[in-house]
């Protein structure tokens, strides 16, 4: 099913991911900018393969079919590094050999050439995340919540076309989880990005507030 307003947002049409004879994903959807599609399923149901497929990192053992386009651009025709699909994993995965500032600067698009402008951009996004002045810090010295915010800042500053969230809150403790959820979904709406969220947590889906697509065995409750 292809939507008429595919110029605005992310379109998945007849996306099928198969492993041998098992169909892991079978999905058509349209996600407008600023909206969230939540893909829910138990662990091992293959829900993360959808994100790998869209990002261009899917292991070749999976068979795939279907089309993915963002704002009318055919994403699958592009190499992974040109897709500009921002990803957040459950671990912040800050590059441990770089300072916080260098982690952010790594993500700033190459067309911002002026060094002063790049530094200004990095300082701006860090301040937005309540991390002003953290540029020279070693990522290893940050708290869990701070790391998660740097990871979010890093992906947002790269000006992605869409955002892929792979259970990004599952490793945070309960209190932080609620905070991060609020922060992520606010920032995503501000940035006006289409988002796919993969999770097994109902509360994530509620916070995202978008359409829910279930994968995996239908008769089993979610873990």
């Amino acid at each position, binding site marked *: 099913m292809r939507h008429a307003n595919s110029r605005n947002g992310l379109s998945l049409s007849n996306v099928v991911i198969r492993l041998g004879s098992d169909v892991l994903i079978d999905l058509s959807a349209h996600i407008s900018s600023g909206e969230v599609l939540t893909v829910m399923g138990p662990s091992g149901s293959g829900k993360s393969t959808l994100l790998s497929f869209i990002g261009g990192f899917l292991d070749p053992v999976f068979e795939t079919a279907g089309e993915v386009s963002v704002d009318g651009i055919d994403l699958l025709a592009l190499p992974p590094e040109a897709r500009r699909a921002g*990803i957040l994993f459950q671990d912040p995965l800050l590059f441990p050999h770089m300072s916080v500032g260098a982690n952010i600067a790594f993500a700033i698009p190459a067309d911002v050439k002026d060094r002063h402008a790049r530094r200004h951009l990095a300082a701006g996004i860090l301040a937005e995340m309540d991390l002003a002045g953290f540029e020279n810090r070693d990522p290893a*010295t940050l708290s869990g919540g701070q790391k998660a915010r740097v990871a979010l800042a890093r992906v947002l500053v790269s000006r992605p076309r869409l955002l892929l969230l792979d259970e990004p809150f599952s490793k945070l403790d309960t209190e932080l989880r609620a905070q991060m959820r609020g922060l992520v979904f606010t920032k995503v709406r501000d940035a006006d990005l289409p988002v796919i969220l993969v999770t097994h947590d109902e509360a994530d889906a509620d916070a995202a507030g978008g359409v829910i697509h279930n994968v995996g065995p239908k008769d089993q409750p979610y873990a």
Partner: protein
Amino acid sequence: MIAGLVLKETPFLFLVTLAALPQVDLAPARRLAASFGYGRISGFIYLLWPALYRQIRFAVYAVIAYSTSVVDVALILGPNLPGTLATRLVQWMSDPDLTFRFLASAGAVVQLAMTLAALVVWYTLERCCAALLRLLRDRGCRFARDAGLRRLSTFVIGIIGSAVFAGLILLAIWSVAGLWQFPDPLPQSFTLRSWVRALPQMIDPLFTTLVTGFFSTLIAIMLTIGCLERENQTGRTGGERSLFILYLPLIVPQITFVFGLQLLFIGSGSQHRYAALILVHIVFVLPYVFLSLADPWRALDRRYEIIATALGRSRLAVLVTIRLPMLIRPILTASAVGFAVSVGQYLPTLLIGEGRLQTITTEAVALASGNNRRVIGVYALLQTILPLIAFSLAAMLPALLHRNRRDMRV
């Protein structure tokens, strides 16, 4: 001579085993075995040894092949013995009478057959032991009282370790000894004269050693990184078969195929002796470099690279900005291993260098059969120090590069 080889190879097998140990669950397995009433040694052998042996098997083969065809140890320890086939081969190969070359070629093939025979015997033993082990295990033999055996093995390892160190210390003392008469426990005076006298002659071999070690290691590292990166992209590893190919240069007796290589280089009329020497060293350096780098390389979380790629970096940029800096420590360690291997090569250097390219090692072996202990001490120490320097650099450089990054420490 057997004792000498045991001394020489134990540290190697020990290191290989240490490297393989983290891949089996030592502590939980020991507790599990103890809870069933098995002794420590039998628990280890029943539960862990099969998995561990599978990892170090090729290294054991390499040791067997090396021992059956060793030249330098035989030259040093038993110059007056009737000579192993391998030492005889070297004599024939360097004989000015060209007809001996045919004899040497035939001998090299015989040597290969001998080594293969030794490997077959070992393989048969391996099978028998495995069968015996199964039998004991299935009968549930516990061997709970193994304290004596444990103490014995600690003792043997201790003896081997201290023999190696004692030898080194003795050499160090000799290299600075002045007059040292027979019954005295220590020299009457210490002097740097041996060093001062030996150093000018050492500059050429030292230079050759460093250049060959540096370039063969550099090329081996680049080849290894290329292979592993390719493995990343295709998502396929070479498996058991590629491991065998990697170990092949270590399992086939050096003397057999290096002699062939020598003839090849002479036949090609190539004048690039340095290039040839480096090339031959790579054959031996590459397996060690690959084996030490492969595990850390595969262990790095792929998601770092996925994130970097999603942030718009090309494959090469991700490799250079993310993977290589994050793996700087294992890469440098692998380089140090490679350098140490290159420094230690005797036979290939002797044959390919044809006496015109000397390294510290060939000089040391040549001197060892003489009786100037002071000069031998100087060369042997230098030969030990070079790898030591490489390993220290490998340990210190990352600490310096990433001094403000806590997660980049070990």
